[in-house]
């Protein structure tokens, strides 16, 4: 078995067709792991893009974003425990989903 590459606790998926490029998630993200794209999407908006690293899976950007599904936040499942690590997200219910 090959060694797993370095992974973050969180992962961000942004639907570039739904994103309207308002930038609220970029402002909200505590570790500043979201950038604005250089190119335009199908609709003519620059969109948010995950910087590729640094996401802690806190979920704060999700609630700052006005679009229902532009952002999906994922969190690491630990191999040993098989559970999602608990975190204080400041958002009630963040651990449900």
């Amino acid at each position, binding site marked *: 078995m090959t*060694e*797993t590459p*370095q*992974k973050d*606790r969180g*992962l961000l998926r942004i*639907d570039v*067709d*739904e994103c*309207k*490029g*308002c*930038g*609220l998630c970029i*402002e*909200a993200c*505590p570790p500043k792991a979201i950038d604005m794209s250089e190119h335009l999407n199908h*609709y003519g*908006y620059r969109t948010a893009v995950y910087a590729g690293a640094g996401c802690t*899976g806190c*979920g*704060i950007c*999700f*609630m*700052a*974003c*006005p*679009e*229902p*599904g532009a*952002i*999906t*936040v*994922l*969190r*690491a*499942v*630990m*191999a*040993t425990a*098989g559970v*999602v*690590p608990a975190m204080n997200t*400041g*958002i*009630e*219910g*963040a*651990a*449900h*989903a």
Partner: protein
Amino acid sequence: MSSELVQDYTVVQGRAKSFYERFERKPELQHQTHFCPGCGHGIVHKMLARAIDELGIQDKTILVGPVGCSVFTYYYFDVGNVQAAHGRAPAVATAMKRSRPESIVIGYQGDGDLSAIGAAEILHAANRGENITVIFVNNAIYSMTGGQAAPTTLIGQKSTTTPEGRRSLTEGYPMHVSELLATLQGPVYIERVGLGDNKQIAQANRAVRRAVENQVKGLGFSLIEVLSTCPTIWKMSAVDAQHWVRDVMEQTFPLGVFCDRTKEARPRRELEAAPSLDRIPGLLGVADQELPEAAATLSEAVQAIDLHVRVAGFGGQGVLLLGEVLAEAGLDAGLEVSWLPSYGPEMRSGTSNCHVRLSSQTIDSPLVTSPGILVAMNEPSLRKFDKSVRPGGWVIYNGEEFPPDCVREDVRVLALPFTQVAHDLGDARACNMVMLGALLEIAKGLPQASIDAALGRLIKNTKWLALDERALTRGRELFRGSFPEV
């Protein structure tokens, strides 16, 4: 944490189940809302959808949407949806909750909707302590219509109707809805939250959920005011708008809980459900009567009926009853009918009038602005409406002398002292029925049986019923005597 332990990722924040998968409002980009980039409505929608998800109430939630930028709630939320007229969401929600107590009824309103045109509705719904939840999105402006001032517009804030900025001298002060409603005894929970930063958003989430949960527990009226953003009308970037909520709006509208009676509140006893439709005749005391049934096939004579009638007179002359009997008879005959009383400021004295339509076709408007038949029970009423009678029409006038200056070449007139005729029959007040008798001779097709049925339903007193029947007959005779050829 050792990175090697990370095995997989699982979704912790994603699209709420209470949103439709596709929004069919427009043909493309059906997963995107219609809101401008950065609009606070989108954020509040997500809070509400998540609360509905978490409380597991999607199948029993009814969302009452407003007029304003958030008018399309029914395109987004996969729950029961009603879209109320401007400002009326609390009244609609009241009806919904009372007739479906097991439903969770949530009103969603903007600040123009709730605090301007709908100020009375929210005040009384709160005062009655209706067991509903209201999400009040305050962006300090009318956005949908392009940025007019709202009652919540800040002092100095520019809008299209306060181009120099709001001044208290002319526009009054920003209305503090939460504080105002918190003075009432009805509400159980009122909190103002904001979308000004991450912390505020987290608190807003909790508050929205709590307000819905209060209803699930049956506690009573809850309202959450959300200081929200409108980057478009405020002419700011989404991020600047967010900061403006925290740095400026909050100065005028402090955040916090203004009323919390959730501890003392007992789950409200459910109101008795509204009576079912089949019980209504019994409650109205008309259970034993045969109600009209729509005739499957209308006779040719009935089918030809197309009446535009205006009846006018002094209050107390039976103007409205005349129209009612006519409409009720039409209904009995299987026709489409409308009866529209119009008493305006003269309700107590002076003139009153009503519009009556009978037709075998769908009635487009209940207003009769150019009647085919005018029944004028006195001279002022004649003078008010004589010009409006359509060419080829009729005037039935209560008076021997038809005023010469009201004569028209293209209108036929039956002018008789109907009050005197009724008096001679037994009571001057039966004048309206004598005139109706004459009218029925013009509107020939209406079967006598339908007229009898209508009288039977509307005239309860047997003495009066007998007199009215005589009066109708007399009216028919008088008409035939004057116009034997018609």
